[in-house]
């Protein structure tokens, strides 16, 4: 059902946790649907220097969270905002069609975390 890469990121998720003094926090999803993703970012000079996550959800949701926090580190805010659901799914070697929308919340959660950072630093 899942690619080897999805299973790897699900069974050994990277960057699990919270950043106590995060510069931006973004939450996406709804427990009613089964998946909620929370992303914490640390920003220096317009660049994401650290990212962590907490996720309630299925194997795909956890793998997506792990992958996006890996991908985003070192990226400028503009580069990070350019990442889409497809970017994350492709990096994971694909996601089952029915998981593409409900569990692939990483890009949206990240966008919210960046918006949160921007609203605090205006």
């Amino acid at each position, binding site marked *: 059902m*899942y690619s080897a890469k999805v*299973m790897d990121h*699900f*069974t050994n*998720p990277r960057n*699990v946790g919270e950043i106590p003094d995060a510069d931006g926090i973004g*939450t*996406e*999803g*709804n*427990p*009613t*649907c*089964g*998946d*909620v993703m*929370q992303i914490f970012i640390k920003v220096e000079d317009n660049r994401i220097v650290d990212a962590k996550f*907490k*996720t*309630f*959800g*299925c*194997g*795909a*949701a*956890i793998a997506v969270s792990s992958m996006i926090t890996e991908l985003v580190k070192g990226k400028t805010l503009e580069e990070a905002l350019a990442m889409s659901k497809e970017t994350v799914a492709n990096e994971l070697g694909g996601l089952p*069609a*029915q*998981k*593409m*929308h*409900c*569990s692939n*919340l990483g890009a*949206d959660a990240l966008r*919210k975390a960046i918006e949160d950072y921007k609203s605090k630093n205006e």
Partner: protein
Amino acid sequence: MMKCYFDHVATNPLDTRVLDAMMPYLKDDFGNPLSIYEPGSKAKEAIENARGQVASLINSKPSEIIFTSSGAEANNFALRGIALARQNEGKHIIVSRMEHHSILNSARFLEKMGFAVTFLPVDKHGMVDPDVVKKSITKETTLISIIHASSEIGTIEPIEEISEIAKEKKIIFHTDAVAAAGNIPINIKELGADLLSMAAHQFYGPKGAGALYVREGLRIVPLIYGGIQENGRRAGTENVPAIVGMGKAAELAKEEMNARIEHVRTLRDRLIKGVSSVENIYLTGHPDNRLPGHASFCVEFIEGEAMLLLLAAKGIYAASGSACSSKALKASPVLLAMGIPSGLAQGSIVFTLGKDNSGDDIEYLIAEFPQVIKRLREISPYAKGWGIKGEGGECIVQK
């Protein structure tokens, strides 16, 4: 690595004694039961023998057993067959919210055909209240269908009481006994149902074989038209090996019923006790009045599919009613009908035990399962409570 199969409501392994009984009909004895020469009559005899074995499992007459391809077919047949046969007397049917999809979706089909359907509520243990059944009956009601035992939560419904009510009002009563038949004793005379569905693979028989008990003299419209097989009530050349297997499995289930029940109940109780030390885990379904091998839970703050995958990585195979683990991406309607909040319903996990499970299997599960829960809670934002509200709003489900 240990392999522990705890998903006996999904399906059971084929008993080797059943396979041995089937083998001749997969190889040499291939005749069509309708043929008049010897290979045909041999197959015909084998089917009638199996019919007797299945009838004996529920204490019915052999002539009251109609073989089908599955439990789902038996359910479709019962609902449509009776609703259509009696449509001149009324067009209202009653089912519960505990039913399997093969009942629910047949009921919805009948709704589209112009029938009125009442979907009965259940209490927090998934029990249908016979008084509510009584109050839902109208002059138009021709059929009531209530599941015998729930595969999702194990709860056994008050079938005898409901069938009494139906009898008083001269309404036909069907019960979906797919999860119950072969696993707990059923005496159709005491149960009082007019129709009852079964599936062979739920009691160590093959897949592709089911049966519908239809009380003698009851008129039913066929689901499949064609030849005169099954007395003209279910056409199609019989699946002889599968039917023979169902018969043998029924015979063994009857012989070994008490020992099997004792075995799985002991293991089940140990499992529930062993798992209950974990915080924020809730048994779903009725605490006592449940299938003997059935242990189902909701684990708070984590999701079922993730649990299934981590357990499977340890060789433990179970089931879940969470939205993510279903192809429909909806949390189990059964859990929601019992009033379980949708977030908690995502943490559904179901362990169903069988005759071949051992005490070691249970000890292994009790050792590994809490670790899986701990690991997922470390990842979950909710581990300290349901405080965080997502902002996604509604579920986006695209097929």
